[in-house]
């Protein structure tokens, strides 16, 4: 998801349920001497709450330029003298001091989804004072087997129905391996067993951001299992925030991990569920029960899979494609201190097929300059 526009932050800034729990935790930890880091600050809502709670200084760290607006918001609220905006990734910026509190929203829809936890660990290890606090400081990922016939019909079995006289059933095996991120009003499902924690972590100590867990469930009611409903719980000070669809709506979405074909389960039957995802990798979920077994993976839904994934194999020598050669050309000239105009001219001459004119070369040069220029 892109967070480069103000509009994309609306659901987070105005997430009253989530932010009220954050605010309570912030008030618990912040004192007049507190130095606070708001990590992945966005428009700085949590950092501004910390400043409003009396923190001495608050660093807002955010890679997207949207964080610059937080300066104006701070001024409008009389908090500008306590707010320091650092635009960049936490790994790239430099905080001039240690902090007493790190506030983050890096737990994602399914805890590991956005691969942001390593950045939190980096910030914690580098900047958190001994005895300092994290908000949140503990996180859990839960799953429950559910009956969800409407969702299954709408998102998966629909692929087996002829449409306008055409057979789209090939799509079903891909759809059945995609995680469904659903708004709560669409997420009509019935749990067949109480949820269990598949993965959890003490954010003050953990250092790995991969997920591997399993749990056993006893089915409470005979029904068809269409998938596994997943959500997270995070501890904010003394309170827990859950993204369970039964709880008040928050910005984070619960997820449905489909089973296809659905599994008919009997009351009292035991089902073993496993879930794994390496950092930056694919989700794989599997069930084992007397009624049958299923295994799905987002790996099996990747349409750009084979040719791109082959390049990631440890034994593969990827070389450089033409775009890679052009990028290298541009970066070398950037390093040599040449102007964008000179670089675009040179690029257009070296690859006239890709760049019929300097203007089209300039687009690529400007993109790389924006990203990698000083």
């Amino acid at each position, binding site marked *: 998801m892109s967070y480069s526009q103000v509009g994309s932050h609306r659901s987070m800034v105005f997430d009253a349920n989530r932010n009220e729990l954050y605010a309570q935790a912030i008030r618990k930890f912040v004192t007049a001497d507190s130095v606070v880091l708001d990590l992945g600050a966005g428009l700085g809502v949590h950092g501004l709450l910390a400043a409003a709670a009396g923190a001495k200084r608050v660093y807002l760290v955010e890679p997207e330029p949207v964080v610059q607006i937080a300066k104006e918001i701070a001024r409008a609220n009389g908090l500008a003298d306590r707010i320091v905006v650092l635009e960049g990734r936490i790994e790239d910026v430099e905080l001039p001091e240690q902090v007493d509190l790190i506030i983050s929203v890096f737990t994602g829809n399914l805890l590991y989804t956005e691969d942001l936890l390593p950045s939190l660990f980096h910030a914690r290890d580098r900047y958190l004072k001994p005895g300092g606090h994290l908000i949140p400081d503990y996180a859990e990922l839960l799953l429950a087997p559910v009956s969800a016939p409407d969702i299954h019909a709408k998102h998966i079995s629909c692929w087996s129905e002829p449409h306008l006289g055409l057979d789209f059933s090939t799509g079903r095996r891909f759809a059945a391996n995609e995680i469904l991120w659903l708004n709560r009003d669409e997420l009509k499902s019935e749990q067949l067993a109480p949820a269990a924690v598949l993965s959890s972590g003490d954010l003050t100590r953990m250092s790995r951001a*991969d997920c591997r867990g399993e749990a056993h469930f006893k089915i409470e009611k005979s029904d068809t299992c269409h998938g596994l409903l997943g959500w997270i719980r995070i501890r904010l000070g003394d309170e827990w925030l859950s993204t369970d669809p039964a709880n008040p709506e928050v910005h984070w979405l619960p997820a449905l991990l489909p089973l296809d074909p659905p599994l008919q389960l009997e009351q009292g039957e035991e089902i073993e569920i496993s879930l*794994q995802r*390496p950092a930056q*990798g*694919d989700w*794989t979920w599997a069930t084992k029960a007397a009624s049958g077994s299923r*295994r799905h*993976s987002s*790996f*099996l839904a*990747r*349409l750009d*899979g*084979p*040719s791109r*994934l*082959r*390049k*990631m*194999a*440890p*034994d*593969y020598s990827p070389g450089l494609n033409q775009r890679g050669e052009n990028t290298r050309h541009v970066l070398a000239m950037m390093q040599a201190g040449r102007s964008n105009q000179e670089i675009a001219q040179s690029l257009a001459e070296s690859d006239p097929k890709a760049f019929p004119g300097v203007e089209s070369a300039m687009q690529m040069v400007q993109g790389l300059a924006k990203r990698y220029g000083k």
Partner: protein
Amino acid sequence: MLSQHVLLSPEALFQEIGGEGVILDLKSSSYFGLDEVGVRLWQLLQADPNLQAACDTLLAEYDVEPPQLEDDLIKLVHQLAEAGLVTVE
């Protein structure tokens, strides 16, 4: 070696589109790429672990000299075994 059985790892997920294939090893979380012949071999071994039978089918499907194909298959199976994606019995 051709007379042996090649069993696919239950921890290996296989994905194929348009003749290219990739295996995800759930144990190591690493990817292994397969070319067209590798894809076909994997599909044949999914149905029957008999490597000789797979070789015979491939000889019927591809215009290739038997010694060359046998050599290629043995090398590939060796690589797959080293990666933990198959066991040879």
